[in-house]
């Protein structure tokens, strides 16, 4: 490949608009879309991992042991699926939805 210095902007575009960096969407932070914010109440959590399985935005972190971690607020869109599906402990939810910025 010839030097990219001195090249025009359009000359540096990848041929055929191929995206060369897999998973580069992580640079796009969708957390700003959120109007409702999920909050995890750890003591009510039974570690069923349903929230993790059902999150459309892969926004529930997992610890090295495969346990539920915190929300990833950089990407969480606040849809509330996790909260609705959370069985919680004895019927008491481990996720509640709250208004963003409250």
């Amino acid at each position, binding site marked *: 490949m010839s030097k990219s210095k001195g090249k025009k902007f359009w000359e540096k575009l990848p041929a055929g608009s191929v995206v060369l960096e897999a*998973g*580069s*969407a992580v640079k796009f932070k969708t957390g700003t879309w959120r109007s409702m914010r999920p909050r995890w109440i750890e003591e009510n959590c039974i570690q069923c*991992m349903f929230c993790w399985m059902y999150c*459309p*935005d892969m926004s529930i972190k997992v610890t090295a042991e495969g346990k539920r971690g915190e929300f*990833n607020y950089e990407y969480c869109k606040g849809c509330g*699926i996790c909260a609705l599906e959370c069985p919680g402990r004895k019927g008491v939810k481990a996720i509640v939805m709250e208004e963003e910025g409250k």
Partner: protein
Amino acid sequence: MTTKPLRLRELAKGEDRLTHGHRMCAGCGAPIIVKQVLMATDYPIIAANATGCLEVSTCISNFTAWKIPWMHSAFENAAATISGIEAMYKSLVKQGRIEDKQVKFIAFGGDGGTYDIGFQSLSGAMERGQDMMYICYDNGAYMNTGIQRSSATPFGADTTTCPAGDVIPGKLQNRKDLTRIMAAHGIPYVAQASPSHWMDLMKKVQKAFEIRGPKFMNVISPCNRGWRSRTDDAIKLSRLAVDTCYWPLYEVENGVTRITVKPKEKKPLVDFLKPQGRFKHMFTPENEWMLKQAQEYVDKQWDLLQKEAVFSGGEEKVEDKPEAAPAEEKTEVQ
């Protein structure tokens, strides 16, 4: 390759092959489906994707949410595109130019890209015996262009091209039963799945990947935009679709039909319809006939499916919501 166990805690340690940062609407069902499909297996996967919500939202400019090789070319040709990719793989392996890494080939398409405009290309690929799996995420309309009717749109639904008016109360035709049409192709494996029943879905994917030849899976994909429901109810609605037998979970393996999840108690269809704004007009007194007709259709189809399961020799496995309990032991499959 041995089929990996479907234990949530083990699965959770794996890497996401579809990343966050995609731009599907909050609460969309489609990325949940894709994530479950990709998670079901450790085989390398290469995917083609038809134009539609999933495609435009997962790969924009130089942002791609895919960590697998992925290709979009047009709307009606995901099956043909993946056929070409698969053919090249086969050719290069045969010539010894690349190593056979047991790559699995998937085409993802929306209902519009599958039931309608892409149907010919899908049917052709299936008939040719292409070694691939086609997965339709069926949200029941052309969502990406603004909720127009497709042949997957259910009876009664209010869409932008069949708006519920005073004279015509929404879509007057039943949805095309594509899963059965695909089964009629006589391909080795056809299934219907729902993201609510993740284990059932993932087992089907696992099973499909152990079969050579063409496979088809139809997955209900809630769309809160088009269905006019809440952003948090994608899983609830897909579960209700199963529980009302609107969307039965079954598979057709070499001609044998098996209902994989049979609801303990079949719920009335209105439980599925009521939370969705697209069916709101059906709940007025003058449109009562629509509810009745919709229920009758579901009953008839469900009845047919059960008969077919018995007739074809498929044992009816009663397995109500296997993921209702976090028990890990019983979730292991081989």
